[in-house]
């Protein structure tokens, strides 16, 4: 935050300051408004009978005993619900050749993953609904499950969808230059590795939650949900329940964590909406933890075979890899399940100068729960593959891992740059960030300590990553492919009669502090105290149309729309004030809720007084002054498909070679997300993200057996990072504001999760290096590390 005074550094400024979240007090006092807190008259509760098999024919269903339970309101089988729904198909036209069969809420003839909903029971309470679920009798004929991704991809394996000729959903190749030729030559060192990334999931502490109301008289549906993209859900519900879009209202109040999990179309949630319409009474569905693990989208599950070639100067001459990923039996709607693979094809090696590049991705159906976009989509895989290959090859040629990065990172003054994969990068600071990281972590000292530790039998490792993060996406992400997902967002700001601002914006809050930063921007740009700003988000009936919060776009896109609206409103207000004060608008400003003279700072009129004149005593205004006192502006990124950020991160770990346990000793991040609106909130996004990344690297995996049975679907068996295992995380910023907007903010929500796994992987392998072994599988569990250390014994 150094340098000359910026336009944001005026007195009473909020942008760039760690303003405390106004809504935090409510949450610490137990006054949140989560979906499950909602109690409505005549509300009933849903539970689902789900498939116990990964792949089975449904021969018959007997619901008679379930229906006879006192308190049961309805029992719905497939056709009861499905007949009310237009099927959805999750493909995008810009992912050429992608296919996925149509989907409906409940499995009817065939169940294709363990956990797929088959029967819906609606009752006076969730407990009664669960009792009745126990009494539903379903006869199955088990079919051969196809779970292993690589086997599923092969011809001749059983087909999950007989109407398709294979289990492949999508394939793509990226070719730039001539990697094969570049890898030849006597001065070229090549290195190959096979990486395995386990399936994991978001584990939002508040599970997926829906309450749906239907009003038969006016044919309107209200969908209270815990989610990130209300307008997308409105479009989905409208299209597939065949209701006019304006008759569907989607409301997301407090959301207990989302991370991408709650931005998709889930059959059980759609069934809940259908049930409310059929029963004409509110229906609540709150997933329990078992349902969360077996039906919330999973992510990752990639097998990547990668190869890197460097010359004797350590310059990368070529990078090639192929990625095979399993996505479950269908692509998830409407974002599709091919995006993670696509991101990996686009982003691997993105920080570096690489001219010769070949990548192949294969996206495969399998009989496991569905896979889709979870925080940092594709980034953890892309960054780990490239930066692991780089660190490993650096050791091959006896070069320091920092040195090899400095030789290959795109120069900070080289931008704009288009990568081998066609990504457009601008205003990044890889070198400055790496330099800052090296200084912060005291790299040379750590390397010296490492030598003496090794001599003492202590195996500590240092691992780095240089990365990019996709933020502020333009319509090129989804809209271009036909999905009902807005890339633009809107903000309306209204001045009330008391001189306060009311902001409504289409981005959403899931705890990041979105509402806080929107208030900061509105307060500063317009000129009022922040406690005079009230923010509304998460309600399609009350906010302008927009995409919501995902792909780290809330601050950069939503924030810019608020900035533009606040500026427009201010111009209007100053016009009115100039008329009342009989002066010119450009001689006036607004400061702390008062209209002042720019020249001498003299207070001219309180905004509350202006509001009262406009709203109550408009007779005092000249007839040609017709104040609106409300302004709406929309914003989308137009100059680039995405506004990338960059970071440099490092991990310091200790591997216990007797138990295989990894202790994360320290973690450092230097992040360049452009203009930092609220340093504390940004740092907390990074810390939370890093910890999710460490979870994926060391602990978290949805374990399936060969029959497609999920083995660890409880919070006691699926290991998430807890406080005792986590280190304090040190953060610094480089600020390179994006010139695509006035605000200059890029996103910061996903970098930690995208980069941390690579740094941890490199650190573990750095620790293991003197023992002549390595691991390239995540999570790096003690068992896997011991197997790497003692292959003959285990």
């Amino acid at each position, binding site marked *: 935050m150094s340098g000359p005074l910026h336009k944001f550094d005026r007195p009473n400024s909020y942008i760039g300051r760690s303003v*405390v*979240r106004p809504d*935090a*007090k409510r*949450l*610490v*006092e*137990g*006054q*949140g408004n*989560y979906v*499950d*807190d909602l*109690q409505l008259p005549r509300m009933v509760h849903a539970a689902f009978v789900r498939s116990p098999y990964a792949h089975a024919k449904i021969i018959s269903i007997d619901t008679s005993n379930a229906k006879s339970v*006192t308190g049961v309101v309805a029992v719905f089988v497939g056709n009861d619900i499905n007949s009310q729904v237009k099927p959805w198909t999750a493909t995008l036209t810009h992912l050429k050749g992608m296919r996925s069969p149509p989907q409906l809420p409940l499995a009817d003839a065939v169940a294709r993953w363990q956990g797929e909903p088959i029967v819906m029971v609606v009752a006076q309470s969730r*407990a009664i609904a669960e*009792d009745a679920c126990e009494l539903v009798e379903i006869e199955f004929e088990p079919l051969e499950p196809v779970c292993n991704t690589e086997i599923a991809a092969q011809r001749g394996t059983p087909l999950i969808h007989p109407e398709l000729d294979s289990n492949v959903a999508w394939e793509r190749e990226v070719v730039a230059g001539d990697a094969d030729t570049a890898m030849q030559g006597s001065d070229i060192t090549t290195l190959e590795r096979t990486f395995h990334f386990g399936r994991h999931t*978001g*584990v*939002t*502490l*508040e*599970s997926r939650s829906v309450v749906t109301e239907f009003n038969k008289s006016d044919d309107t549906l209200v969908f209270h949900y815990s989610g990130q993209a209300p307008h997308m859900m409105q479009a989905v519900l409208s299209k597939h329940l065949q209701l006019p879009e304006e008759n569907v209202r989607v409301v997301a109040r*407090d*959301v*207990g*964590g*989302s*991370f991408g999990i709650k931005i998709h179309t889930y059959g059980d949630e759609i069934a809940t909406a259908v049930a409310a319409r059929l029963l004409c009474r509110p229906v609540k569905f709150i997933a*329990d*933890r078992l349902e969360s693990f077996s039906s919330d989208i999973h992510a990752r599950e990639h097998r990547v075979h990668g190869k890197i070639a460097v010359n004797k100067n350590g310059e990368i001459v070529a990078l090639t890899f192929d990625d095979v990923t399993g996505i479950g039996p269908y692509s998830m709607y409407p974002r599709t399940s091919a995006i993670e693979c696509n991101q990996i094809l686009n982003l691997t090696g993105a920080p570096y100068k690489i001219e010769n590049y070949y990548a192949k991705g294969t996206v495969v159906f399998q009989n496991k729960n569905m896979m889709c976009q979870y925080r940092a989509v594709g980034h953890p895989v892309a960054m780990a593959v490239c930066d692991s290959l780089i660190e490993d090859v650096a050791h091959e040629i006896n070069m320091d891992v920092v040195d090899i990065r400095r030789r290959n990172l795109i120069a900070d003054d080289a931008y704009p740059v288009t990568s081998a994969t066609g990504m457009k990068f601008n205003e990044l600071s890889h070198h400055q960030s790496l330099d800052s990281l090296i200084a912060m972590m005291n790299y040379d000292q750590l390397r010296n300590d490492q030598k003496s530790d090794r001599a003492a039998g202590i195996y500590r490792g240092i691992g780095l990553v240089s990365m990019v993060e996709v933020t502020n996406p333009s319509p090129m992400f989804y809209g271009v492919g036909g999905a009902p997902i807005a890339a633009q967002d809107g903000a309306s700001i209204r001045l009330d009669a008391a001189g306060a601002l009311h902001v409504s914006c289409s981005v959403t809050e*899931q*705890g*990041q*502090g979105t509402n806080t930063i929107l208030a900061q921007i509105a307060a500063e740009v317009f000129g009022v105290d922040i406690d005079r700003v009230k923010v509304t988000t998460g309600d399609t009936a009350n906010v302008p149309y927009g995409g919501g919060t995902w792909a780290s776009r809330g601050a950069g896109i939503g924030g810019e729309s608020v900035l533009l609206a606040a500026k427009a409103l201010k111009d209007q207000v100053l016009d009115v004030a100039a008329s009342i004060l009989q002066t010119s608008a450009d001689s006036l400003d607004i400061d702390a809720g008062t209209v002042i003279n720019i020249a001498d700072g003299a207070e001219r009129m309180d905004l509350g007084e202006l509001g009262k004149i406009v709203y109550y005593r408009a007779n005092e205004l000249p007839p040609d002054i017709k104040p609106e006192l409300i302004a709406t502006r929309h914003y989308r990124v137009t100059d680039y498909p995405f506004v990338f950020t960059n970071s440099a991160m490092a991990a310091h770990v200790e591997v216990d070679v007797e138990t295989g346990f990894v202790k994360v000793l320290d973690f450092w991040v230097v992040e360049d997300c452009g203009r930092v609106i609220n340093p*504390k*909130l940004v740092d*907390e996004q990074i*810390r*939370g*993200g*890093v*910890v*999710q990344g460490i979870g994926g690297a060391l602990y978290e995996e949805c374990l399936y057996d060969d029959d497609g049975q999920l083995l660890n679907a*409880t*919070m*006691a068996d699926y290991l*998430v*990072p*807890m*406080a*005792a*295992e*986590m280190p*304090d*995380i040190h953060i610094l910023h480089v600020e390179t504001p994006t010139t695509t907007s006035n605000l200059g903010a890029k996103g910061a929500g996903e970098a*930690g999760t995208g980069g941390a796994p690579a740094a941890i992987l490199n650190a573990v392998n750095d620790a293991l290096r003197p023992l002549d072994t390595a691991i390239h599988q995540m999570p790096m569990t003690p068992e896997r590390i011991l197997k790497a250390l003692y292959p003959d014994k285990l």
Partner: protein
Amino acid sequence: MSQKTNIALSVNGEQVQASVPARLNLVDFLRDHLGLTGSHVGCEQGACGACTLSVDGVMVRGCLMLAVQADGANIITVEAFGESVTGEQLQQSFVEHNALQCGFCTPGMLASGIDYIESGGSTDRTHIRKHISGNYCRCTGYQSIVDAIASVVEGRNSLAVETKQTPGAEESGTSNKRAGE
């Protein structure tokens, strides 16, 4: 399963009588029957800690205790944590340190934090981390929660030193504010 039992208990200082099914757990009773929705349900098996609340002064999982077991008990939930000095200080500290994002784990995290402070926990970050390791938070990465708890302990320690140095200064208490009034 539908057999009901009469219970009488104190919840946040208010006397409550109810007839509840034997299988109803305490947190569901508080949420669904009394409308005290501050305590959250994350896993229903005692693993996540979101439903942690005070029963007769002991922090317990609201999902692992039946409502009928709370007959005669004195329950304090997040809605009334702020009525004790420790609770109020910790809530304030959580806000200042941004020790919450989505807020879903917060009621349970506060309960464990209060427990740590009231049992004389130190500012040692490792100790704090261990003590809250029964509470799952997916958002923060825990560091700000540790900061918030440590800061309350630190504030009390420095106050205790001041009290020693300034004869006649009032003892800072951890007791319930009401009791102190």
